[in-house]
């Protein structure tokens, strides 16, 4: 059987759609599992609707590497994104979560975690997690 490694040098787009969350509706959802070792070249979220950030009530979105055995809390991929005042989501515009390559091992599970801060939090719109996955020749 062939391997993803045959695609070395190609960044394959992988998209996982996630549902909207109500304000204070924290969640963590699986968005990807690596079949073989691979490199995340880019990772972003693309919302279906706008969201306006707020300094008091906001959400923080984090991409996590859970390994193959649901590590808790897992390793942050890239950087957590806090949607405070001035940091908004625009409908159908990508917000990047990753600024440098991140390598995954075969079997690693990636989740998206949404955590509210403040008394009311923020409603996070339905969104697509878009990953660009490059197989590794290892």
């Amino acid at each position, binding site marked *: *059987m*062939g*391997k*993803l490694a*045959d*695609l070395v040098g190609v960044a*394959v787009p*992988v*998209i*996982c*759609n*996630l*549902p909207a969350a109500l304000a204070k509706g924290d*969640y*963590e*959802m*699986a*968005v*990807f*599992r*690596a*079949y*073989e070792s691979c490199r995340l070249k880019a990772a972003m979220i693309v919302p279906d609707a706008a969201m306006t950030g707020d300094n008091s009530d906001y959400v923080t979105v984090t991409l996590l590497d*859970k390994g*193959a*055995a*649901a590590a808790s809390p897992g390793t942050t991929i890239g950087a957590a994104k806090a949607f405070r005042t001035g940091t908004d989501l625009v409908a159908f515009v990508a917000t990047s979560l990753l600024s440098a390559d991140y390598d995954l091992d075969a*079997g690693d*599970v990636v*989740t998206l975690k949404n955590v509210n801060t403040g008394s009311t939090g923020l409603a996070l719109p339905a969104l697509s997690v878009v990953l660009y*996955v490059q*197989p590794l020749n290892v």
Partner: protein
Amino acid sequence: MGKLADLVGTAIPIQIHSKVATGVTEDISRTVFRAYEPGYIVAAGFIADAALNGADTNSRDIQFTDKNSDAGGSTSLGLIHLTSGNNLVAFVYKAVVTTAYKLAAGDVVTFDSAHVGSGITLPAGTIVLYWQPTNV
């Protein structure tokens, strides 16, 4: 333009989040893949967002089904009975299809979840398939 067949020998990941848990007695059958060209589902499974404890009497089955291109197919690619001891762990991949299954061009694959007895809830989670094109 290149074709998927140019990717012969690769396993392309496909991830679809179910968005909601099923009801206790709810049965679902959801399209998760259609083959543009012939190829193999080399593996497929489910990553639950929350734990599920399997049970023997009131339980749930999950499987992937080849519906063919006319919805007339019913061949199972793989089936799991979530019986006692066969649990789902949050964010851990549960393999359902472990043997490569060949699809013809146009074949549609569904993810099916069916209650057994009085049923149990299937947590929301991500349906994962790995697709390998062939050149035949």
